[in-house]
C-alpha cells in the first residue's frame, strides 16, 4: 500500500492561479508525491480537500509524473492499494497567520507531525478545531493501521499554516 499526505491548500487549485505561483515549492512536492502514488487512489479528505486532491491528481497526470500500478479502487474487505490523504496542521502559528497567533499551535503541530512521521497519527479533534487545523482526512487514517516511518518531502509553514507532504509504503 502507498499512502501520501498533502495539505488542503486552495492556492493549489487551477481556478485560483495567478501569474506567479505563491506555492511553487509546495506544489512541486505535492505533484511529485501524488505522481509516485499513482492513478485513482482512495481519497481521505473533507469536501474542499477532495477538490485539492482531484486537482493534484490532474496536475500529476498532466505533468507526466509516473503513474504506478493500475486501478486503485477499493476491493470489498481488502485494504486499498493507494490512499491520498488531505490535511494539514494549525493555521494559527503566527500573528500574520489566517487565524492569528495561538500559543498552543506550535506544540500541537509538533505532536501531530511526530505521530504522522511515525505512521500512527494521533489527533486531538477538539484542539484541532480551535487551532484551525484540517484533520478530517488524517483522522480517517486510523483505518489504515500502522504505516511505519514516513518519507518527508515537505515540512514548513510559509504562511503561518503548517504543511506536510509525506509518503508511506507498506
Amino acid at each position: 500500500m502507498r499512502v501520501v499526505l498533502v495539505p488542503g491548500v486552495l492556492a493549489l487549485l487551477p481556478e485560483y492561479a495567478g501569474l506567479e505561483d505563491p506555492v511553487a515549492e509546495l506544489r512541486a512536492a505535492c505533484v511529485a508525491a501524488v505522481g509516485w502514488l499513482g492513478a485513482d487512489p482512495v481519497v481521505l479528505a473533507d469536501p474542499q480537500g477532495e477538490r485539492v486532491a482531484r486537482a493534484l491528481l490532474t496536475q500529476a497526470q498532466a505533468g507526466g509524473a509516473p503513474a504506478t500500478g493500475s486501478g486503485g479502487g477499493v476491493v470489498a474487505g481488502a485494504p486499498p492499494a493507494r490512499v491520498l490523504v488531505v490535511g494539514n496542521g494549525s493555521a494559527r502559528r503566527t500573528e500574520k497567520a489566517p487565524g492569528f497567533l495561538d500559543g498552543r499551535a506550535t506544540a500541537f503541530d509538533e505532536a501531530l507531525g511526530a505521530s504522522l512521521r511515525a505512521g500512527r497519527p494521533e489527533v486531538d479533534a477538539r484542539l484541532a478545531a480551535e487551532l484551525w487545523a484540517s484533520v478530517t482526512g488524517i483522522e480517517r487514517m486510523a483505518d489504515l493501521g500502522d504505516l511505519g516511518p514516513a518519507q518527508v518531502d515537505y515540512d514548513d509553514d510559509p504562511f503561518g499554516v503548517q504543511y506536510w507532504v509525506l509518503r508511506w509504503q507498506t
Partner: protein
Amino acid sequence: MTLRLGRHEFPDTATLMMAIVNRTPDSFYDKGATWAEDKAFERVALVAAQGAEIVDIGGIKAAPGVEIGVAEERSRVVDFVARVRESFPDLVISVDTWRAEVGSAVCAAGADLINDAWGGADPELVDAAAEAGAAIVCTHTGGVTPRTRPYRMEYDDVVAAAIADTVAYAERAIAAGVDPASVVVDPAHDFGKNTFHSLEVTRRLGELVATGYPVLVSLSNKDFVGESLDLPVGERLTGTLAATAVCALAGARIYRVHEVVETRHTVDMVDTIAGRRPPKRAIRGLQ
C-alpha cells in the same frame, strides 16, 4: 489576430504602453524637457526601464506654433530613431508624424510604427508605411488641418464619425499594402473635438473596439481632463487615470502616455477586474 508592429509581434491579450518622447522645445506637458537629444535619450532609457513596450517620438508639437518644415522635422527625429534602434532592439519605435517623407525616413532608420495624429492629412503616408512594412495608427480628427485647434466643430454623432473615418483610413492603409495586422485606430481625444466630444468617445469607446481593429487611446493630461476637473497641466494625472480605466474596461489595447508606471498599474488592475488577466500573485484566504 496577432498585432504586428514592424519587427515586433504581440498576442491578442497584450496591452501596450506607448511612452511619449518629445524632441520638441515647446510641447504642452514637458515644455521642452527632452528637447536636447541626450535628454530625450535618457527619457527613452527611463521609460524602457519602466516597462514601456513602445516609444512615440515626435518632432513637432500638436498645438499651433512656429512652422517646422520637413528638413527640420527630419533633423529632429531620424538620427535619433537610429540611435534608439541600436540601443534598444526590443523596443517598438513609433514616430509621431503626418508627413510621408518623414515617415519613410524614420522607417529606414528603424521605426516600426507611424503614429499619424492628423488623420491622414498626407495621403501618401499609407504608402510610406506599406513600403517600409511598418504599422500605422489611423486617427480621427474630423478633417482638420494639422496643428490647428478645433473651433465650433460639431458632429451628428461623434462616435459614428470617429468609427467611419478611422475604419475608412484603415481600409485605405490596407489597400495601399499595409499588413492588416499592423493597423491601429485612435479616436484622438481633443483632436477636432471639444471636451463633450472627447467625453462621449471615452464613454462609448467599446463601439470603436467592436470594429475589430486594435484601439489606441491618447488621454494623457489632455484638455478634456483639465476642463472636466478644472485643473491645469501638471495636476491631471488622477483624471487621466480615471479615463484610462474606462477605456481599459472597454478594451483599448495601446495607451499613449506620459506616466508609464501609473498607467500600467491602472490598465493591469482594470484587466484583472475584467477577468482578462489573473492576479499577479494571490494567496489571501487561499493558504
